[in-house]
């Protein structure tokens, strides 16, 4: 508040000065407009969080693999899996071969199948930089610098890039040899407007190719997978959307049931929308285990143990709010204090419908 007022006042003052000065100064030596306020070294230090491979922006600090494991298990495993194996996002660990560390080329990338942070990344500083600015996903920029070194060290260790007793700090981070450090090229035409394209089409106009051979089509079972296409095209003019419900197994009969079988809205808000909006689905699916138990499993447990539905609802709401670990596995569920009470009740009521 005080900052913005000060800034505005200073801008007005500076602008007045600049208007006088601009008659004499041109180009980059002096400001032409004089808007804004100077960024002090302190201002820059708080916002300038980037770290570059050459050491530019490196922050003083340290952390060991062992310390990093504690941070990781508490704050990262919930999404990325205990060993960095979860494929909900780019897989954190796996696929690095001992030979890769020598060559600087991750062999698994040739098949294209082994794309992980370990096999793709070329510099450890980039891992540090990204974790520091954007992780944990629901609370970015909450790790201390030392915690950030520690958890970066642990992720490197999960990829067998550094040993278990390694300490990552502002010196060692610049010397870590990544498995894919030689795996990148800038020799291509897409880095500049004036670049030379690597693939050029032909301008043939007549009898250009043989008979058309269709090499790939959308399977019939996948044609309704993006919803009914009839509802995605304006129903006016020469082109209408295809009623893809007819491509579902069972055709039109299924189409009718589809509109009736949707999860009921509770209090005007759809529970399924809430579990998506509040990112519950990152870890929980309706019928399958991801990181956490399925909603159906949770429902079965609570409805079988507590005969009174209201009691079960209250207990589950409190459990979600407080978080916990050890009930379904070692990976902890963080407290969900950001979800509103009313929304929480809607979600819990919907979960219990899965057992009925």
């Amino acid at each position: 508040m005080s900052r913005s007022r000060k800034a505005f006042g200073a801008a007005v003052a500076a602008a007045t000065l600049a208007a006088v000065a601009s008659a004499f100064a041109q180009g980059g030596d002096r400001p032409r407009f004089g808007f804004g306020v100077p960024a002090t070294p302190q201002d820059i230090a708080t916002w300038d969080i980037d770290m570059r491979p050459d050491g530019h922006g490196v922050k003083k600090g340290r952390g060991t693999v062992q310390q990093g494991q504690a941070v990781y298990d508490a704050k990262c495993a919930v999404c990325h899996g205990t060993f960095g194996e979860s494929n909900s996002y780019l897989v954190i660990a796996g696929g690095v071969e001992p030979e890769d560390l020598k060559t600087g080329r991750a062999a698994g990338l040739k098949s294209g199948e082994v794309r992980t942070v370990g096999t793709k990344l070329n510099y450890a500083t980039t891992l540090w930089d990204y974790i520091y600015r954007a992780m944990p996903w629901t609370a970015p920029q909450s790790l201390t610098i030392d915690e950030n070194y520690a958890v970066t060290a642990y992720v490197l260790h999960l990829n067998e890039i550094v040993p278990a007793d390694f300490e990552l700090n502002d010196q060692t981070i610049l010397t870590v040899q990544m498995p894919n450090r030689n795996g990148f090229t800038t020799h291509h035409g897409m880095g500049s407007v004036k670049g030379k394209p690597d693939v050029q089409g032909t301008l043939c106009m007549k009898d250009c190719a043989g008979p058309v051979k269709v090499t790939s089509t959308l399977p019939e079972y996948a044609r309704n997978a993006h919803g009914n296409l009839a509802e995605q095209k304006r129903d006016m003019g020469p082109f209408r959307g295809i009623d893809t419900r007819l491509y579902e197994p069972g055709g039109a009969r299924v189409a009718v049931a589809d509109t009736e079988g949707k999860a009921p809205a509770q209090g005007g808000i759809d529970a399924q929308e809430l579990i998506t909006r509040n990112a519950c689905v990152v870890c929980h699916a309706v019928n399958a285990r991801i990181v956490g138990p399925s909603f159906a499993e949770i429902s079965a447990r609570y409805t079988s143990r507590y005969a009174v539905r209201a009691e079960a609802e209250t207990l589950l709401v409190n459990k979600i709010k407080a978080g916990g670990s050890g009930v379904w596995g070692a990976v902890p569920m963080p407290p969900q204090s950001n979800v509103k009470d009313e929304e929480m009740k809607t979600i819990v009521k919907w979960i219990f419908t899965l057992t009925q």
Partner: protein
Amino acid sequence: MSQQQRPAPGRVIPAPENHVTPEQYAQARTGRRGFMQQAALATGGMLAAAVGAPALGQTAKAAAAAEPPHLPSWTRSLGPGVAVTGYGLPSKFESAVQRRQSPGLTRTPQSSVSFTPLQNLFGIITPSGVHFERHHSGVAEINPHDHRLMIHGLVQRPLILSMDDILRFPSVSRMHFIECGANSGMEWGNVAVPTVQYTHGMLACSEFTGVLLSTLLEEVGYDKARGKYILAEGADGSALTRTIPVEFALDDVMVVYGQNGEMLRPENGYPLRLLVPGVQGVSSVKWLRRLEVGDKPWNTREESLHYVDLLPDGTHRQYSGVQEVKSVITTPSGGQKLTTKGFYEISGLAWSGRGKIRRVDVSTDGGRNWRTAVLQDPVMTKCLTRFRIDWNWDGSPAYLQSRAVDDTGHVQPAISALRAVRGTRSIYHNNAIKTWAVQPNGEVWNVQVA
């Protein structure tokens, strides 16, 4: 109004409220009129007809109720007044025109993408409300009075600018496309999605207003000898960063606050974003809060783990920003149905990150024979261009393709030519010719051909 009632010249004429009954006035104010229900029923009927079997006979029958001597209710009643909706919305009969996600593509909506409904749009401007979205940590909801842009690094005068400051700088308005580097990425290996919304919908085009980045760089006195790259950083939870070469920055990069005549939408970076014309969308950092001038590229996560193009030998192309020449037919296209034989206008979009579209050719036989389409004015650099061509469909199978050429002479390649060089796992920068197959029953489906 009789001659006697007419006021003398110069007198105020009574407002029209004087001519309606209090009941009519009340109805008009609330907008609750019987015809609304009738109209909804009628449209429901038309939708059912269109969905079931949009044969010409049935649509004609459904429309018969609108023919003379019928006088619709909206002709025989008073409508709502001005400013009933302070910010107007599309007609409720346009509800098909929505951004949509591709099911199963991402785990959560906060780190995800929604696609522009290209199949429903005309011309080249994307309405701001259906501009595709790509967020990495959800939408940052920013009070513009609390937003700052810091410019520092290899500069003489590090600076913090408020929105008040930025709006004072000399401005420019330009029309440019934004295309995600991963647009059409699902098509590298095979056909995977049904419509042009999902194959090409990470694409939009707007009139942007803002300050040229070169103006701001001059203002802070950037180091012209050593300053070769600029780091742009967002203010959202992902604090997304991308390296911008000075070559681009001094050319046409803008710091943008305006989009299609109003401020940016929150989903598109309100109140401030970078715009790097012709370069993959991730470089046009949204919710822009920091620009740092440096002597080397940053190798950020979005330049090493993502937005790098995997080649068959396991090498990744890095800093591959330019969106090369590309086009796609939007009508007719996948998931649509032709209602009858006869005349159709084939229409689509063409663009290039290297300049203007020079020419677009269209084939209806899978690339054996081509005709040159008409380009709609204006044709602008690094901007969508609308093309059109007449076509008479005789009911036989057809394979529709478009092929664009830009003013550097770059010709849009076939998917087979792209794969021969880049393989099928690149994810990014698929600018291949797109094929839509028209079946004898009028249905159009996404296919790939050799």
